[in-house]
């Protein structure tokens, strides 16, 4: 019925010491803030309860004794205390939030940086949406823990301690009497927390169900309409909508009971104070001011306890999120660099595949015993039907994956003995589906590398023939590329990606030619651009264009993971084997044009 992600729904413990310890590791750089926050917390927590005490003095010492000046003086003191409390409170909030924001920032960057290191195997298996959620929402829910959760729990405890100190100081027996309702409040809060949690879960479940129903059925709306199922879907929706409503109404019940009970208990405490304290006043063992102060203290006392349930939820969500975050941070699917990588000097660009076996999963080999070599400066075309293993070959040369058996060498050095960065710096890759980032055309060509100048960008664009259309854009090279590059045509995007590959001036070029059809004019541009790209570098091309094939030094025919034929275009054609058929199928049309 719904696609609620179970992984994201687990609500576990509200406190987990192991997780907490790791989380506190992120607080370390901000020790200073913590100290300041704690000091301010103690101060603010004391100032609040101080006021009822001052009011008591105002009543008992000045009002009852008709002392005008004393009354004015104590009012002034009250106001100063109030101002002071307000100011400290402001900075307390500010600093704790600043600390929280900084911790979140650190954590987010750390997580993002970690993801950058993960191997493509991880990305193949994990839906991108889920990784995004880790970096965005999960980190966000920790914010509440750091900026309000922990701090308010501290300050609530301090407030309660201070109130108790003041109360016991004024009258220990009235303190005991007025606090006698507390056990009931605790119990009610505990029960409420438990019930609300259950019903909250139910509400969340129903909401997720409602949303996923809508999501799914909006996507499948044409099926609903084609099969004339509108009325029935209305009824089905009504049931789900109703369950959502009922879950919410059920949860209203707990709130409807809990909040009045708190109010009744609070009034009950006032009644107790009037009863017991009033009696003491009549006997002359207590002043009316104390009565006033106590009535105010009970109010103050109730709030932190009532809020406890909310804090619990914050903690619980934070724990669940941090568990998921740490799980990602602990993921070690990383292609490791060797301890002392061999340097890559005067790199020429020779490539050798020696008996390479490769499987994405276990033993399902997509490449079987592949051996071939490309001399520096040569162009090799790989052809084959879909699923022959062409893309896997180019994934391996970049060391996106490690091979299962065999060896891949560049200039005679095994890839695994080089640093990934050194290797990849020598290789430019152009993928079939061009990927453009949001940003400008220029930043998509130099990929943000400041060492590549504007002039170099333009030069590269000119060489591949992209300059002609870029210079016609309103902002030219600074033209914004919209989400997924919707502003540019498919052909234009390809030219941009060619310029990108060229500007990095690689020794080895890997090119997965796009199959998508473009207009003749752009097609000509692309053909020319490819010829220019290939000049003077080692190139491995998954070829879909006849011109590329004919100009290549060698053609490798890949079929079901194995190399079946090798040779030049003419040689292979005369063989009348697989290549001949492939040629008829995929490339022959291009001759006509």
């Amino acid at each position: 019925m719904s696609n609620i992600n179970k992984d994201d729904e687990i609500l576990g413990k509200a406190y987990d010491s192991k997780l907490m310890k790791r989380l506190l590791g992120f607080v370390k750089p901000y020790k200073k803030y913590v100290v300041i926050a704690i000091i301010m917390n103690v101060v603010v927590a004391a100032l609040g309860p101080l006021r009822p005490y001052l009011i008591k003095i105002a009543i008992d010492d000045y009002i009852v004794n008709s002392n005008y000046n004393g009354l004015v003086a104590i009012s002034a003191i009250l106001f100063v205390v109030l101002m002071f409390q307000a100011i400290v409170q402001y900075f307390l909030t500010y600093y704790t939030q600043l600390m929280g924001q900084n911790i979140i920032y650190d954590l987010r960057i750390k997580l993002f940086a970690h993801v950058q290191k993960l191997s493509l195997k991880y990305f193949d298996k994990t839906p991108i949406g889920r990784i995004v959620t880790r970096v965005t929402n999960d980190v966000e829910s920790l914010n509440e823990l750091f900026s309000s959760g922990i701090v308010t729990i501290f300050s609530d405890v301090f407030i309660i301690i201070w109130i108790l100190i003041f109360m016991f100081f004024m009258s220990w027996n009235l303190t005991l009497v007025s606090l006698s309702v507390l056990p009931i409040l605790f119990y009610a809060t505990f029960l409420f927390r438990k019930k609300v949690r259950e019903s909250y879960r139910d509400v969340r479940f129903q909401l997720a169900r409602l949303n996923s129903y809508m999501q799914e059925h909006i996507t499948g709306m044409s099926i609903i309409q084609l099969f004339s199922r509108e009325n029935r879907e209305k009824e089905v929706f009504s049931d789900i909508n109703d369950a959502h409503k009922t879950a919410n109404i059920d949860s209203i019940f707990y709130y409807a009971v809990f909040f009045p009970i708190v109010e009744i208990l609070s009034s009950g405490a006032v009644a107790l104070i009037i009863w017991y304290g009033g009696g003491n006043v009549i006997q002359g063992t207590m002043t009316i001011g104390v009565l006033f102060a106590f009535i105010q203290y009970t109010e103050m006392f109730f709030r932190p306890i009532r809020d406890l349930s909310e804090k619990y939820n914050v903690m619980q969500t934070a724990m669940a999120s941090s568990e998921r975050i740490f799980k990602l941070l602990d993921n070690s699917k990383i292609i490791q660099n060797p301890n002392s990588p061999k340097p890559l000097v005067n790199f020429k660009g020779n490539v050798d595949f020696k008996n390479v076996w490769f499987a994405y999963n276990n033993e399902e080999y997509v490449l079987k015993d592949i051996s071939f070599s490309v001399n520096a400066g040569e162009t090799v075309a790989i052809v084959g039907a879909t699923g022959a293993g062409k893309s896997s070959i180019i994934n391996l040369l970049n060391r996106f994956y490690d091979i299962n058996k065999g060896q891949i060498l560049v200039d005679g050095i095994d890839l695994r003995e080089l640093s990934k960065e050194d290797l990849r710096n020598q290789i430019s890759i152009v993928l079939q589906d061009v990927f453009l980032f949001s940003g400008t055309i220029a930043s998509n060509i130099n990929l943000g590398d400041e060492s590549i100048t504007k002039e170099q960008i333009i030069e590269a664009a000119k060489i591949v023939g992209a300059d002609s259309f870029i210079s016609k854009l309103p902002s030219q090279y600074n033209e914004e590329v919209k989400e997924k590059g919707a502003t540019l045509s498919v052909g234009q995007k390809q030219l941009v990606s060619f310029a990108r590959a060229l500007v990095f001036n690689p020794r080895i070029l890997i090119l997965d030619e796009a199959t998508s059809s473009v207009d003749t004019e752009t097609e000509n541009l692309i053909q020319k651009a490819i010829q220019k790209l290939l000049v003077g570098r080692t190139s491995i091309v998954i070829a879909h264009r006849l011109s590329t094939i004919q100009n290549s030094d060698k053609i490798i025919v890949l079929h079901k993971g194995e190399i079946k034929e090798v040779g030049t275009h003419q040689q292979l054609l005369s063989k009348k084997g697989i290549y001949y058929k492939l040629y008829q199928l995929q490339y022959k049309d291009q001759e006509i044009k």
Partner: protein
Amino acid sequence: MTRLFTLNKYFKKYKGKMSLGILFILISDIAQVYIPLVLKDSIDSLKKNPNIELIIKYALIIFALAVLSGFFRYMIRQTIIVVSRKIEFDIRQDFWTHLLRLSHRYFQNTSTGNIMAHATNDISAVRMYVGPAVMYSIDTSVKFIVVIIIMLSLSPILTVYTLIPLPILSYFVYKLSKKIHKKFTLIQEKFSDITTMAQENFSGMRIIKSYVREIFEIEKFAKESSEYRKRNMDKIKIQALFAPLLFLITGTSIIILILVGGNMIIDGKLTLGDIAAFMFYLGLLIWPTIAFGWVANIVQQADASLKRLQTIYNEEIEIKENSDTDKSITKINGTIKFENVTFKYMDNLPEVLSNISIEIPQGSTLAIVGHTGVGKTSFVNLISRLFDVSSGRILIDGNDIKSIPLNILRENVGMVPQETFLFSDSLQNNILYGVEKANTELLNKVSDISQLTKDVNDFPQKFNTVLGERGITLSGGQKQRTCLARALAINPKILILDDSFSAVDTKTEEEILVNLKEFMKDRTSIIISHRISTVKDADNIIVLENGIIKEQGTHEKLLELGGIYYDIHYKQLLEEELEKE
């Protein structure tokens, strides 16, 4: 704000409960407001008439009033908030009903995410208005009026003095929440930037890794995150003012009370009990004062949400029954005729189909071949009226398709769309989706024809197997065959197969085609396919190219022609040979 009155129709439905709720607010508020008066009497009696029994009586009255007020507070939530949830239900229901009527074009042009945003955020903003906002504004107004009347009766001067700071609080709450809301929008924007950036980064990981741009990407991300942190801090700078302002202003009220009230006591114009009562009343007024500012914001947000919802309600329902609909048409035989049909998706877009005329006699099979994007799918979408023609007309059994009641038309057209969409429900419910009642015989029959039975028998729960994320994932071919079974189950007079066997292996496809021959005996069928093997036996084959019929005839005739059809045929033979290597 007049837009909010459109919600009145929902309120009207729950008139009774709403009025009760308002009555409960009155009772609860009055009981609550009475407590300080008793407190006042009890404190005054301590001085004037010290009597422990009287004190106990007062204490009990306070408790009783609290229980009374509390009980009705419970009742308020049980009426007004419950009503708000019911109204939310009604709004959602209306929203969904409306969506069900909107045309295919709307869903093609609007992202699901966009519609979902309305369905979740906007509806819940409106609910906040109909529930909490209404409850609190009534509660607030009642409390305010009653409390101020009592305070005035106790001491007009003291009332004026102590209440002076409160409007300032309301003003600040209103202003600050508005500002915070704005800052919050900025934060949300940045957050969605960060999300997009992460999304893009993770999707473009291949490029990033191969150009060794990781460090740069981290820096870029750090810059955005830093901006996000800054915007958060901008909000916090304002938000942090809330609590201090709150107790600064309410505290000032209390200090004024002590100072001015104290003076009045010393002058003998007031009692200590009055001060106690005032103190309580000020406490009671704090929440309503905050609520004023808060409610004002909710109302504004609800108004904005309602505006967005209304744009959906105002969306034109393009394909619907109207005065041209001929209700006397209750069945369809299946002769289809296109008369000079031209179709384009929008006025300013090029024609997808240009001036097409063709007749498909009842019981015959028409096959359509052609490259991607030549209008094959548009052709069949016009028959099921997912879209209407731009000019020309389509006749079924001689009636203009627009005059046939929509449900009659669609109940007789069985469509197997190109994109296989199945609901995350059981197989049985998916196959019998278009059928009123579960029918095992029918289920078995259509599954047999679609060559699905063997697959189903391999599932542990057979036809009760649930599909989708929570259940099993079908292979592409299984999905297509399920979609076929679903279309067959409605016993259609016209069957449309839009490239429905692309993921089915050729052997199974042949078996299905043999089965279909029997089933389709006196039904009309239209088959779109890339495979010659699928279409070769059709009564008539058309080749579409650039929106027009380029070639037409039987398999043999088209092969003789040596055109596009011949080319496709030749290539497929080659492919088959390659597969055998």
